């Protein structure tokens, strides 16, 4: 188990290193010098040079890469070109919106998908199964931001149960904050829940066809007992993979959903920074997104080993 963890950890670090090089290189290709962009067309060469050295732009690219990465390791993401404030502060505030939103959506999606998938699998071919599969087919086809607009129209504008947008902040209390994130989280979660329910169902159906399920029945387990005791844990292995992959979709989706609800999250930050050509912020936010995706997949790998003893003993 330790060896397995170490191996995964090594692969995590390697992925992060490569990802950081890719992101850094891409941003380096971006045209325009941030310093001259900030000072405008008529800047004096001396002021320009001073600003460039203040921003750390006057050293070689390799040095800048290591300054950027080592800075990130110590929590120093550099200084925003436009706001002249530490990037880390800007990100921290936004992260407190985006991260809870993604997690909230993940919880909703799992809570909806697991029972739906299990129910459908246990009633294969019956009305319940066909109904759930039809609903998921629709759920997969609905764009989450459009679904979000419909939720706003119904629950915020017509029924007035929720605010149409904005975020009052966690200072107003945990439940109020959660309430404000509920519509966005539902919008984000449902299309993913549809996919997850389908995967859960097909994975369970695969397991139901396995020899050991027949062995379990021969022992005297009812088909329902066999499903819960032997089917579920085996079916979980492919489902975990999808949950890991979905996290990256949830993060990306949250960037779009924040636009619908005017939430002050990472997505808004990124779009503002792109239009202001505040590339250091873009660079850091992208790195953070990629980091969280890689981290989640690392955690999924560990969860695999917890579920499947064959992985623990191998490698």
């Amino acid at each position: 188990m330790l060896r397995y963890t170490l191996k995964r950890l090594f692969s995590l670090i390697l992925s992060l290193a490569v990802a950081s090089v890719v992101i850094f290189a891409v941003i380096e290709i971006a045209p325009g010098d941030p310093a001259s962009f900030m000072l405008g067309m008529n800047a004096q060469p001396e002021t320009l040079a001073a600003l460039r050295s203040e921003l750390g732009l006057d050293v070689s690219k390799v040095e800048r890469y290591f300054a950027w990465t080592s800075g990130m390791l110590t929590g120093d993401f550099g200084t925003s070109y436009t706001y002249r404030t530490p990037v880390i502060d800007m990100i921290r505030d936004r992260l407190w919106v985006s991260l809870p939103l993604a997690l909230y959506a993940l919880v909703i999606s799992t809570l909806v998908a697991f029972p739906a998938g299990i129910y459908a699998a246990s009633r294969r071919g019956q009305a319940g199964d066909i109904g759930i599969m039809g609903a998921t087919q629709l759920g997969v086809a609905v764009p989450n931001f459009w679904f979000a607009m419909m939720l706003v129209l119904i629950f915020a504008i017509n029924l007035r149960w929720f605010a149409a947008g904005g975020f009052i902040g966690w200072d107003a209390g945990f439940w109020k904050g959660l309430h404000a994130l509920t519509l966005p989280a539902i919008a984000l979660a449902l299309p993913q829940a549809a996919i997850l329910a389908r995967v859960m169902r097909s994975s369970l159906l695969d397991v139901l066809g396995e020899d050991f399920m027949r062995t379990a029945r021969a022992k005297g387990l009812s088909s329902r007992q066999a499903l819960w005791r032997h089917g579920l844990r085996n079916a979980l292995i492919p489902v975990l993979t999808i949950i890991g992959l979905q996290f990256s979709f949830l993060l990306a989706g949250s960037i779009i959903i924040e636009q619908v609800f005017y939430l002050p999250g990472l997505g808004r930050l990124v779009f503002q920074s792109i239009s202001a050509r505040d590339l250091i912020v873009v660079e850091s936010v992208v790195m953070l997104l990629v980091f969280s995706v890689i981290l989640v997949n690392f955690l999924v790998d560990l969860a695999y080993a917890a579920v499947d003893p064959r992985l623990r003993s191998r490698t």
Partner: protein
Amino acid sequence: MKRNLILGGLLSALFVLAALISFAWTPYDHTALDIPNKLKTPYANHLLGTDHFGRDLLSMIMVGARTSIAVALVAVGIGMGLGVPLGLWAAARSGSLVDEVIMRGNDLVFAFPSLVIAILITAIFGAGAVNAIIAIGIFNIPVFARITRGAALSLWQREFILAARVAGKNAARISVEHILPNVTNLLIVQGTIQFSLGILAEAGLSYVGLGAQPPTPSWGRMLADAQTLVSIAPHMALVPGFAIILTVLGLNLMGDGLRDYLDPRLRVART
């Protein structure tokens, strides 16, 4: 379940047809402003109503279908064109350094959701439909590489491949002659699914302004326009929304139908 195939095929064909017809004819010029008739709900003159500039929504949907289909189709092409050979190569050299590099590269690309790729591209080149194609296309590469490799690996275990090796054929020739024909069903089905995902992704990117730019019409941007007006003119959001849903639904049904028709045991990746 032939019903899926027929229903899905009809829905998809409807939108492809709409896109094709739009080259020759649309009810109105999709850019023509008609302020007196703005925000009309559907009626005889404008079957799907008009937007806040009085533009005909049906015409915009028809022309927008072109963008959606073109972006998604090219993105699937990029994904297949690069992903399938990579997957075949990795499977043929399974366990080697090449395989390891290709698979780790795939994992890495998976860590960049297409939206993030689009953000990076936009940061460099600015926004545009081509960005959307590249972003979605790049994300499709590992999808196709993975499923191709997975299917090819199990084929490489089969004795008919061993027989071909005994007949002196090299890995490249075996991949093309024996492996590829046996994974085409899988690729067709996965291609349909990626096509529908591409349409969703393009709409999302256009909605946040990273995709098609004016005056190129696009369903995603129509929704962005509709957002502020959703309380007074819900049809502006409903029309493009249903266009997206029906197209994606049609393609997904067609994919499922094709799978059941070609081979129900195909392992298709859905994310």
